[in-house]
């Protein structure tokens, strides 16, 4: 068993490397100006590396399933890696339909960031509490992940569209917003980098503080920029909180979460700053010339198609299967738990997207922005709701 678990992690690592290589290969297909609109050997190589990467990750999934005895979608690490795998699948499907390399050049790095984000969570296999022991759990979680991944491709198409179409001559509100989106991706990388860094360095600082008239200890694994409210550092030679968390910030470990957020944003800012220095211009402006060959109408079409394909899958997994499972586990099909509500919000949002597409004037740029907002909602549900607005679903 231990062995299997070890190999399973190796496979995930290998998949990560393969995705990285395919990103480079897809970049090369776009640089390759000799062959317009042709499926060359380079294209084949990029596509097959991606597919081999996917199969490798699938093997990780299967081996881990065998090792743990249940489908590995039961904690944050497992769910997020599964989501990344579905993202690759969704990209491959849409690549087969539309043959847009650009999609790979953006979707695969997003996948890498997501795997990096996942790897920060505890990776040991965890037992299932009784209410999670149901086939509906697997059916529900896997379908949601697939649906959200297909919807995420619409974000990828949307962001390419925006970078290509929005004028980069002067700094305007719109291309500033684009930079903000790019910066948030850098912050996600920042989160992974910083968490890994201090985990490898075995950083730990313990604070003592009073909660509900009891002395409790809180362990920080990142140096405390934001310390706990009214906390005292008890580990020696470690950084004390620079700024205490505001008093109104309640909830378990709220200050720790805020600290992590501040760290991610800061490291993101550093990474973004370095990128700016190297490029000597806005990131979107630097990317724009690479997108010369992209066909905006086709991107718009993909942006919409991905929603059209993903919406039914998401409804089935995120609402219907979820309700069946909730009915089984807690004998109520709907309980207005934050996680459920955010699934409903996601659904409302994409319903709005589809209806607006029916009216004139909402194609192109506007719908690309909508796709970005939709992805932000999905990420909000995955990150903020899980970690901050605790509920029944909040994984360890």
């Amino acid at each position: 068993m231990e062995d299997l678990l070890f190999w399973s992690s190796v496979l995930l690592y290998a998949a990560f490397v393969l995705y990285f290589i395919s990103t480079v290969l897809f970049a090369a297909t776009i640089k390759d100006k000799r062959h317009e609109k042709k499926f060359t050997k380079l294209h084949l190589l990029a596509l097959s590396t991606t597919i081999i990467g996917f199969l490798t990750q699938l093997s990780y999934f299967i081996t881990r399933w065998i090792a743990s005895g249940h489908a590995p979608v039961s904690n944050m690490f497992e769910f997020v890696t599964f989501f990344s795998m579905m993202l690759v699948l969704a990209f491959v499907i849409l690549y087969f339909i539309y043959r847009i390399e650009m999609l790979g050049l953006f979707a695969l790095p997003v996948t890498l960031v997501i795997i990096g984000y996942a790897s920060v969570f505890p990776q040991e296999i965890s037992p299932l509490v009784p209410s999670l022991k149901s086939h509906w759990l697997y059916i529900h979680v896997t379908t949601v992940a697939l649906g959200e991944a297909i919807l995420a491709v619409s974000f990828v198409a949307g962001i390419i569209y925006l970078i290509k179409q929005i004028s980069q001559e002067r700094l305007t509100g719109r291309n500033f917003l684009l930079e903000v989106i790019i910066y948030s991706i850098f912050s996600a990388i920042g989160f992974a980098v910083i968490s890994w860094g201090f985990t490898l360095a075995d950083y730990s600082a313990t604070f003592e503080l009073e909660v509900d008239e009891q002395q409790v200890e809180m362990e920080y694994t990142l140096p405390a920029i934001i310390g706990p409210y009214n906390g005292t550092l008890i580990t020696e030679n470690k950084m004390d909180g620079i700024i205490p968390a505001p008093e109104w910030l309640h909830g378990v470990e709220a200050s720790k979460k805020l600290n992590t957020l501040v760290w991610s944003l800061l490291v993101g800012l550093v990474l973004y700053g370095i990128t700016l220095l190297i490029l000597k211009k806005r990131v979107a402006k630097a990317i724009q010339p690479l997108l010369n060959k992209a066909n905006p109408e086709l991107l718009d079409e993909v942006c919409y198609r991905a929603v059209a394909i993903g919406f039914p899958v998401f409804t089935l997994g995120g609402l219907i299967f979820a309700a069946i499972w909730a009915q089984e586990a807690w004998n109520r099909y709907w309980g207005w738990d934050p996680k459920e509500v955010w699934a409903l919000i996601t659904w409302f949002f994409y319903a709005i997207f589809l209806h607006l597409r029916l009216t004139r004037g909402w194609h192109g740029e506007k719908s690309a922005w909508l796709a970005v907002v939709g992805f932000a909602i999905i990420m909000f549900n995955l990150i903020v709701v899980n970690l901050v607005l605790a509920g029944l679903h909040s994984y360890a």
Partner: protein
Amino acid sequence: MNVIKCEACGYENSSGTAICNNCGKPLDKDNNTNLLNMRYDGRAIRSKTRNTSIVDKIWNFFSSIKVGVSLIAIALIASAIGTIFPQSPYIPSTVEPAVHYRDQYGIFGQIYYQLGFHELYSSWWYMILIALIGISIFIVSLDRGIPLYKALKNQNPKRHINFLKRQKLFGYYSQYSPKDYDTLKANLKKHRYKIYEKDGHILAEKGRFSRWGPYVNHTGLIIFLIGTLLHFVPYMYVDEFIWVREGETEIIPGTGQKYYVENQDFIFETYGDDEEDAKFSEMLERQGTVVAKHYETKAIIYKDTSEGVIGSEPTLEEVTRGSAIVNEPIKFDGFALYQSKYQLNEFQSMSFKLHETDDPEEQSLLEFTVDFADPERVYTFDNGFKIEINKYYPDYVLDDDGTPRSQTNYPRNPAFVFFVYPPGEEEPEVSFIGIRQNLDPSQSNQYRIGLTGIDVRDVSGLNLKKDLTLPVLGLGAFIFMIGVIQGMYWQHRRIWIHPENGTLYIASHTNKNWFGMNKEVEKIMQNTNFEMLEDQENKVTKDK
């Protein structure tokens, strides 16, 4: 009512029509070359043609997509607000909500509570919002669905030339051979198009059913919403909760005093007991808490078959027996009994003995047992002793000011004040006894009560459910899924072929996925001398 007479064929169209219902001639100016708006095939739509009476105004309000989208957007924002702080079912049940929101979340929590956001999803305005969305869906479906149905049912294969010219994909060929025409037709058939012909004009069509997708899915949504309303109809929905102690039989609430449940045994297992759980050891150690692996209640369900008046002794007949496990309820007569909560090791009884305070042997003078389900007040003994329970605290705590009280009515931490009357005495000795406590307030008691044994048992929290709305909800969800899949995964594609004066005009239309339509037209044109149709939308933008 106004009619618009078609100049080409003389057909009288109702006002608001954009494309002649008979011959397909666009009814706007002849020299207009903009692409046609093909929604509902140019049929007149009620909400776009009438706007006089109050009914019209209401109708038009609800059938506007802008209004529909705004309603959904408001519902979205409202739903998000409801997740800022936990809803009332998710706060601890031991505190007053008003206090909890203020203490936990400060001034914002207080405002949140006062606005009623702690029960947002059952508030009247949220329900009205959802109802308005339902009404909007209903009206819009009639408003658009009926004209669309009529338009697609009576399609004339022979369309006016201007109709073709103003389609997005369009082309014409002057020197075509009959062979090309036949290959084209054969190719259309090969791609599973249905062919309608009239005087050499062709309408090739496929996937029309996908146009009903939105109407099917909206119907599903309406059925679903009706299902949620049925929730409030009596007898459709029962949701009750009971605690049953091991060995006891209780009436099941919500069944009209008809059903009883006996808790035979409660079984509880945790992770880490089994060898096969070794793989979880790392995680269990990190968390440092017990993780439940399995729990179940073995129970018997009885039915009261006595026909007697209320209050008479029930006659219990066994209906079924089984185990209520999480995810697997015991089912009987339309009800389901779910394993919901549990309370381990609740005290069932405590046994005591009395001995002389200075007797080192602690030889027993008498023994008695207090049963918490039914504690007796006074215990008398043959040797003349009498013991009275003066105070009983089932769940004992000391208040801040030092007064003892009971937190709950459940025997979780029982404590007693006993009065011991030795034979012949009128004045009792007072003893206070609890778990790991034995006090003699006077410090001069001759007799001492000692605890000799404790019996514990588990308590199962069972949840009785009956939900007759589930089939309706399931049906609604199912129809919704059929509708979205049919509307999203198929497209309605049409190709018109129009021969005129030796020239063949071809145009095509799809309601979505133009990329796929283009590819298909390319394939259909294969092996003919026709060139690919031109995308006129691109041409227009390029010309600009």
